[in-house]
């Protein structure tokens, strides 16, 4: 059952990803993207990361993608069907290069027989510890606890990051005319 679901989600997510790359308009790409994000959320569930699955849908598919959509609409690109996919030799070359890169990467990750990927890594204890934490503190609590203790600095940096993003977005997206009187 789990495996079948995984295959399903995987197929959907890859299909969505291909759709993003090949989508004829930004909106199409965006919708494919949403499909991918959603199926990834499904996979997160399969991987027992329920909280992440939730915010994946909420934040990513919900907020960020909508932001994209807003911008597409704002710039009136919704019906921009001009071909912007590079066809021909460029694409071919790109596919070859990226394919090579991916295969090298996969080959590297897989490793040699003796050091078969995953075999060495599979540490049931870790999964058990996570499950235990989730059981004790709930899906949110299991993440929140280390987040606000061990990773509190990172959390603060995230805060600054968002602040900077806001400032930057405001400064950059402001229409030109009005800033000049500053």
């Amino acid at each position, binding site marked *: 059952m789990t495996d079948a679901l995984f295959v399903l989600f995987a197929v959907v997510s890859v299909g969505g990803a291909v759709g993003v790359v090949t989508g004829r308009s930004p909106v199409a790409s965006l919708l494919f993207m949403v499909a991918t994000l959603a199926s990834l959320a499904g996979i997160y569930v399969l991987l027992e990361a329920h909280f992440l699955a939730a915010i994946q849908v909420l934040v990513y598919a919900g907020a960020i993608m909508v932001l994209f959509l807003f911008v597409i609409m704002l710039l009136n690109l919704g019906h921009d069907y001009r071909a912007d996919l*590079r066809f021909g030799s*460029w694409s071919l*070359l*790109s596919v070859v*290069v*990226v394919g*090579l*890169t991916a295969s*090298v*990467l996969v*080959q*590297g990750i897989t490793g040699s027989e003796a050091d078969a990927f995953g075999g060495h890594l599979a540490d049931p204890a870790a999964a058990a510890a996570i499950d235990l934490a989730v059981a004790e503190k709930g899906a949110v609590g299991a993440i929140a606890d280390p987040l606000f203790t061990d990773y509190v600095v990172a959390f603060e940096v995230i805060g600054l990051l968002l602040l900077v993003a806001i400032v930057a977005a405001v400064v950059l997206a402001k229409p030109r005319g009005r800033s000049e009187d500053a």
Partner: protein
Amino acid sequence: MTSPALAYAADAAVAADGWVPVLPGAMVLLPLLGFVLNGLLALRSARDSSAALRAGRDWSPLVGDRRPATHTLPTWIGPGVMALAFGLALLNFLGMPAEMHDPVVRSYWGWVVTGELRIDAALQLDQLSMLMTLVVTGVGFLIHVFSVGYMRDDPGYPRYFAYLNLFVFFMLVLVLGSSFATMFVGWEGVGLCSYLLIGYWFSDREKSDAGKKAFIVNRIGDVGFLLAMFLIFGAFGTLDFAPIFAGTEGQLAAGGALVTAITLLLLLGAAGKSAQLPLHIWLPDAMAGPTPVSALIHAATMVTAGVYMVVRSSVLYSLAPTSQAVVAGVGVLTALVAATIALQQYDIKKVLAYSTISQLGFMFLAAGVGAYTAAIFHLVTHAFFKALLFLGAGAVIHSMHHAAHRSHTDFDEQDMRNMGGLRRHMPITCAVMWVATLAIAGIWPLAGFFSKDEIIWYAAAWAGAESNPFAGPYAAFWALALLTALLTAFYMARLMVMTFHGESRTGEDARRHLHEAPGVMTVPLVALAALSVFGGWINVPEVLRSSFAGLFGALPMTEWLHHWLHPVTHAATSIQIAGFGEAAKHAPLGGGEATWALLSTLAAAAVVAVAVRVVGSRKFQPASLDSGPEGGLRLALYNKWYFDELYDAVVVRPVVALSRWCWRAVDNRVIDGLVNMTGSVARLAGWTTSLFQTGQVNMYAFVLTLGILCFLGAAVLL
């Protein structure tokens, strides 16, 4: 700090005999002093002349008839220092014991002192150098006096005397230097003065070209001298004459490659300086200088330096029979070739120049056959009569020049075709020049007869030596020398006849202005004439004492020069005897010395007589109407056997062409091209690479991905 060099210099060498030379340094320094004083005067005078020139005026030192101090003082300084030097030289000459075996070396300071090399600024006084000093200062003095008259009106008068004094200084360094290195200083120094004096009238392109040519050809010879010095230093560890000649026999294998190389290289140097084949080409051109200069430098002294050097190194040459033969061969060939060229020259100085080359060839022949005394003997007598000839020619030219100048006509004042009949206008000059002509022709009992006869005889005598490996060539040299002697008589007689006899070919107007030279010029001529007559009597051969050639026993001494030079030459002579065996008493064709002397003087007299008749009967056109010989041997002789053209085609042009090629092709294109190409290639590479910066995000991402591929590939696969 006490320098070891100075400590050494303080240790003045005294001859074993206890003779102390009188102020030897002053002999050398007096001319230098003259140079400095005259030089200062020259600069002062030149300041005025150049200022006038800049202002666009012509300049003459004369204000009315008065001459400024810059043009009167040199008259006294120039000949004055020479007189003093001559006096000192005479004093030392007379004081020097004839039997003194070891030279007196007086060292002043360590010139180049480094490691094992030690060259002192030192003078070496021995019989040979003193004799040379005497000739240089004596003949030099006379020529200085002559110059007072000859150069009187030249604007560069003080400069002339400065150069002349400087020349004498270097010449004295050359002959008195105690080592090859100091000799070389004089050697190149006289070359410099020769350069300056040939190009004395430097505004004339041809004249300054001639000076340059002389210098460069001389330098070719100097390279030989330099290399010879290096070899000598390598063999002996010193360049000083005394230890070298004293230690030669022990250290050099007779006939060995080393000594042969040394002597041949020295010969190259000597050939350059003494205008021997194949480096003789500069001397005729050197006639561009003032005529007294030709007399002093290019006849009497400098050009004989090569002979002096060979004689000085006689020990080395004796050890190298091959080199000796080469020296003799070069000498006799030069003598012959130059004599033939002289037959067909019209420029009076050119004839004398080729004559000089020819006579130098005789000296080389002498030195080559081992007759070192004879070489020096001929050097001395030649200094007398050739100086006389040149000065006489100078007087003629002087007269012709004035005639041309006063009559405002333009003709070549040195071309004999423009002369003729000058005897009437210049009787004294004509008379003394006849004396010199007969002397050089070898007419008994004048100087040239004795010296030339001795050379020819020795060639014959050594050709007959038992174990001479080059007996055949020696015999040939002898025959050629005889032939050349006859040619000498012919071309000299031709010169005299064309110049002084027959009809005048000088223009009507000019003829009226021809006149005898002033007293200051004729007095030296007469003095030299006397020397040309009696100079040969210093070395009448003993075997001829009672014969006609010994003036029938009227002389108080025979072979004086031979004895005088004995300390210098005996080592060489004994080596030669050890190698060749005793010289023969008979010539290759039979007959003794007296026989051949009589034959040769009779033959020379006959040739002179024939020449006077033949040339006297020929009609000559003035140079402007004469087109020269039309072809055949005469044309070849007229064109000096085409030596200049040959060198031009084989050496000068190729070197210049090669130089240009090196510059334009190699330096500019290849070497600098490579340098600049490095820069261009870098820039081109930069430009090409910059084309990848298309400004397109996709492109940039693609390159980035490529980089990632490489990275991952390296990380995973390696």
